[in-house]
């Protein structure tokens, strides 16, 4: 899977924890449209196999391909947050950005004829609603660097039992 190289935060899903309940999609669509409709969710769960389940939303790539692809210059990336902004006046729903996105994180709303992309619930006091609701804490707002740190810690933890007994520890009993 291609991965984001961004310095920006994005919504990440841990496939080991994701149970595929789709509650994130209900909450996202409600937050953005006032209705529950997974077709209008900006985060989507994907179940490719009976046990291969995860959720995907915009990964705020640096030099975002969607922005580069837009022939109308309707997309713009916030330099501080990496969030993709859509200019409703310019967007004509041509879907070039949809094709440019490796993560399938962009969709076109057939009613408004505008593209929709995760904005990490910037306007919500308590942050991204999907992260707040996720029953298994599978969703997190994170950066690639944080993910790497976590992976390093997990990797070392997994060999802890093997390594620790071999290290001669100072006897502190006397």
């Amino acid at each position, binding site marked *: 899977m291609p991965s984001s190289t961004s310095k920006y935060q994005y919504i990440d899903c841990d496939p*080991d924890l994701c149970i595929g309940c789709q509650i994130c999609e209900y909450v996202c669509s409600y937050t953005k449209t006032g*209705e529950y*409709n997974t077709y209008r969710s900006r985060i989507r769960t994907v179940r490719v196999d009976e*046990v291969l389940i995860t959720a995907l939303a915009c990964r705020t790539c640096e030099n975002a391909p969607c922005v580069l692809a837009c022939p109308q210059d309707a997309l713009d990336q916030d330099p501080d947050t990496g969030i993709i902004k859509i200019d409703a006046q310019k967007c004509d729903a041509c879907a070039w950005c949809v094709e440019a996105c490796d993560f399938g994180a962009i969709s076109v709303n057939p009613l408004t004829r505008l593209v929709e992309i995760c904005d990490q619930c910037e306007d919500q006091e308590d942050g991204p609603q999907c992260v707040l609701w996720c029953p298994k804490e599978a969703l997190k707002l994170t950066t690639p660097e944080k993910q790497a740190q976590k992976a390093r810690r997990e990797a070392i933890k997994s060999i802890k039992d093997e390594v620790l007994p071999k290290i001669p520890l100072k006897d502190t009993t006397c």
Partner: protein
Amino acid sequence: MFGYSGKILHIDLTERKTWVENKPEEWYKLWIGGVSMASRLCWENIKPGCDPYSPDNPVCIANGIFAGTPVPVGGKYGLASKSPMTGFIGDSLSGSWFTIALKRAGWDGVVIHGASESWVNIFIDDDRIEFRDATKLLGLGTFETEESIREALNDDQVRSATIGPSGENMVRFANVTNDGRQAGRTGHGSVWGSKKLKAVSVRGTHGIKVADPETLNKLSFDITKAAQGPHTSKYRILGTSTNVLNMNKLGLLPTRNYSEGVFEGVETISGEYLHEHNKVKTIACAQCPIACEQMSVVKTGPWTGAMTGIEYECLFANGSNLGIDDINAVIKLISIADSSGMDAISMGITISWAMETFEKGIFTKEDFKCEKYPEGFELRFGDGEAAVTTAEMIRDREGIGKMLSEGTRVASFVTDEMRGTETYKWAMHSKGLEPAGYEARGLKTFSLGSAVGTRGPCHNRTAAYDPDIQGQVDRFSVDETRGQLAKDTEEYAAVYDTLPLCKFIRRCFTGKADRAGAWPTIVNLINATTGWDLQYDDIDPIGMRAHTIKKAFNIREGWQRSDDTLPYRWMNEPMTKGPSAGHFTSDEELEYMKDCYYEAKGWTKEGLIPKSKLIELGMPDVAEEIGV
């Protein structure tokens, strides 16, 4: 109207035409959804007395009130037809994205009439209905069928309810599968097979609006978080398979075709063992924050790679009940059932009946000739390979599998007729449906609940084992309270089956699962969704109506008091081992408890429903037809 579209979609497979029926809000207030609405649709649309396999038997699908909202575990639907297993109402439930898609497509329910001449896949694309040729889907397993339809329609969000090869072959206890979950019991798959209906697929693109989203979200959020606490830890960590050791400890784990209630090989088929050795991942039904399904895989031996979700009921039926202590064989058996779309409970119990019949010398090796074993094989308790081969023969209706695919009742009847034997004495069924994994001889209240069950003996429709196991009553004796208990527990269950909400959430509202603990939250959830003004006292009648319409259906189909009975073994043979040894439910005990039950229900001594009772529940048309 919030929460409903007010529209039921009718589809006639014979004429290939569709029409829309508009239902008033008052109708929804009576029938709500799930099992209740599906059964009511079946009451309204069936030709009474019809053969379950005839075009006159409709397939009735009903959404839940909370489908497609964030209400935890509210993504279930009800499916009802006349059951080919029992000849009475067949009502099943399943957690499913299928129902959510259906709701978003703008339908509260679907009634499928008639029968198709060629195999068909109905595609409900919002309000456009398409009859798609299903020839290319034939022979595909349940999951592959769904995937294949999604690929053909090129849309991830198309959700389907399907039958597998067992349903195509009309294995009587075939079932209907969606998203890896089943509307499992009473043989819906063979009804679909009789209509050449391979799948119903739905794309629903509309949003769902509720009356008071802020309140609904707040309630749902709190329940979602509570569902990560101690009230569901049993389901989250080991799933229902945790029951294996508990049931064995109580002497209630059906073993070797229900001949005993304790199994010496229990450790290696326990939920704990499964968790350690075979579990791959825990997954959830639609809209469920609990996630109880333990996806498990065979890692060694001839069945390596076999994978499916394991539940207690399938585990007992294909484990201890077959005398099998090899978890790999059990997973393989359940995966055969799940991928080909069969009821794993009925399958396991039909095989255990055949095993006992073999061990008693009635069946011989000759009877089990098949392509794999041209000389036949011995079907003995504990033999995993023999059980797996038998399951495959049932799925394919090969050799003796053809007879076994009709279920325990028909198989024993045919055998006794042809061979002059008495295999009915160990044929484990009541009303034609194989029972659940609770040894009822050690649970007297549950034995009553099982005997009077409208779809046969079922642990989901009656929760009468609760007072027995919790020690509220003496589980080995009977008294006058059991009628009321059976009534209370089945009507409690019926409320959940009607909304529907999965019962595993029942302690997450307030910590207490009883009516006082659960109903206030349920009232708030319904009102926030619909904008109605229901009160606490309106909840019990929801369950009563759901149960009564099913009973009324059965009465119209010729039900008699003598149909409320138990398998011969449960009424005549005590177990010899374990904490429940020495007990069984005698004819006198059962008849006495039935008297108490009918009285508690306000029915006649014959178990019929007085007109006044039906009118009181808001069903004067039913009173007219079957009231006394």
